[in-house]
């Protein structure tokens, strides 16, 4: 057994133990998550919301718990917000479709009237520019193949510049940044909210600090925070124990590795001097 096998074994054992035991560690709610939540809360009833599905399924661990909590917030029947979902990358729409339809059915929302999934269109920056004034610039049919003219929600949708809020589920910082560059620069009134995996958040943080991004839900912790705000139980809250202890373990291993390396280096130096 190699040293790395021992590390993997310890890490796996600790995380499995915490998943079974689940002591329920406490955590605080970040200001960026609160801003995200409040922005949706303050949106007038009947407003349209653009939901971006800009992620690959490999990052589902963080994005799906976020989506579960945030889509439930967006689709609450008394809030009466209407959702148009699009994607700049190809894998997100199929996951988004499953989530929208399941939560929509549970909360009594109607496909084509209260929400629609237009799917993926290529072009990234150019595609977003194309739909500035009319979604039909890049989308002819929805994700299931229904022509846009047969979907009542699209009658009043206009283009992306007519929508007051963009909620982007992304596993790369370029997703929300493209919305800032191509949409918010044309209409600064539009709020851009980012629901993003932890690895992609550091490059986005300057945009949050400058106020260009109006709120951010970050990683599994962000999902747990949003579940707390929504008063629901989900994978985010459940994963906080395992994630926190796993991270402490990695920190301990980094420190231990450096201490051992230092000791070995000193011994070698001692031998050379001696």
């Amino acid at each position: 057994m190699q040293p790395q096998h021992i590390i993997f074994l310890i890490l796996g054992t600790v995380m499995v133990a915490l998943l079974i035991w689940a002591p329920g560690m406490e955590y605080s709610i970040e200001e960026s998550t609160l801003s995200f939540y409040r922005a949706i809360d303050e949106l007038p009833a009947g407003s349209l919301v653009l939901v971006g599905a800009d992620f690959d399924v490999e990052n589902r661990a963080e994005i799906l718990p976020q989506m579960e909590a945030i889509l439930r917030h967006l689709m609450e029947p008394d809030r009466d917000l209407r959702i148009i979902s699009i994607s700049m990358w190809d894998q997100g729409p199929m996951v988004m479709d499953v989530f929208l339809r399941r939560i929509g059915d549970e909360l009594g929302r109607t496909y084509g009237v209260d929400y629609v999934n237009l799917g993926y269109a290529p072009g990234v920056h150019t595609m977003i520019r194309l739909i500035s004034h009319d979604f039909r610039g890049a989308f002819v049919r929805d994700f299931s193949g229904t022509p846009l003219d047969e979907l009542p929600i699209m009658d009043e949708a206009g283009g992306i510049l007519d929508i007051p809020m963009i909620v982007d589920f992304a596993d790369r910082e370029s997703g929300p940044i493209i919305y800032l560059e191509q949409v918010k620069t044309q209409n600064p009134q539009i709020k851009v909210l980012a629901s993003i995996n932890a690895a992609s958040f550091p490059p986005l943080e300057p945009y949050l600090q400058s106020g260009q991004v109006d709120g951010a839900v970050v990683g599994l912790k962000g999902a747990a925070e949003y579940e707390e705000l929504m008063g629901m139980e989900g994978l985010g809250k459940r994963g906080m124990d395992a994630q926190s202890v796993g991270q402490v373990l990695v920190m301990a291993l980094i420190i231990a590795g450096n201490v051992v390396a230092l000791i070995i280096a000193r011994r070698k130096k001692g031998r050379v001097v001696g």
Partner: protein
Amino acid sequence: MTLVGVWIAALLTLAIGSLLWKQNPAFRLAEHILIGFTAGHLVVINYYNVVNTGIKPLLYDGRLLNIVPIIIGALFYMRFSKRFAWLTRIPLSFFFGISGAVGIIGALDASIRQQVAATVLPLVTSYSSPWGSFTFLDVNNAIIIAGTICTLTYFFMTKRHTGIIGGTARVGRYFIMITLGARFGAVVMSRMSLLYERLYFLLHDWLNILK
């Protein structure tokens, strides 16, 4: 997910995870399946995209202008012919020209002007209390300003890094190292989430140990 789906996903998860022990045929099989599915998905999505947004409107709705992007796009396939390979330069020129121009227009405002404006911050903050007014150095703002200037100096390559410029660039290097540390920490956090999700799936959906 159906029972068959759960079993397939669980076995593929274990096959990929087996790499932690050593390279083996199960890992390579799962790896090839993943790459094949990803490539296949992209081909199908783009095929229907071209048919639905390009060819069908051209044939059935009379949108004759669609013929222009279809021909330009089709020129990409000329790379398979030695004689006509030069024609691929036409769609590439369109691609680089348009995507570059659209990207730069947005980036100039959101990622350059507004980000530079966000570093123009007051270095001192005033605080009023019943005992009088106090003025403090705003440490956060000072770090942002110093970090931006020092990091930009580090990337200033046309002047030798000696004297004041050298000192500033050295501080900039420390800021870059701290940034990379923060990014690494965030990546560790993300990878822990991935591990947690896979373990949860195995224990909850597959083995039914977790409730």
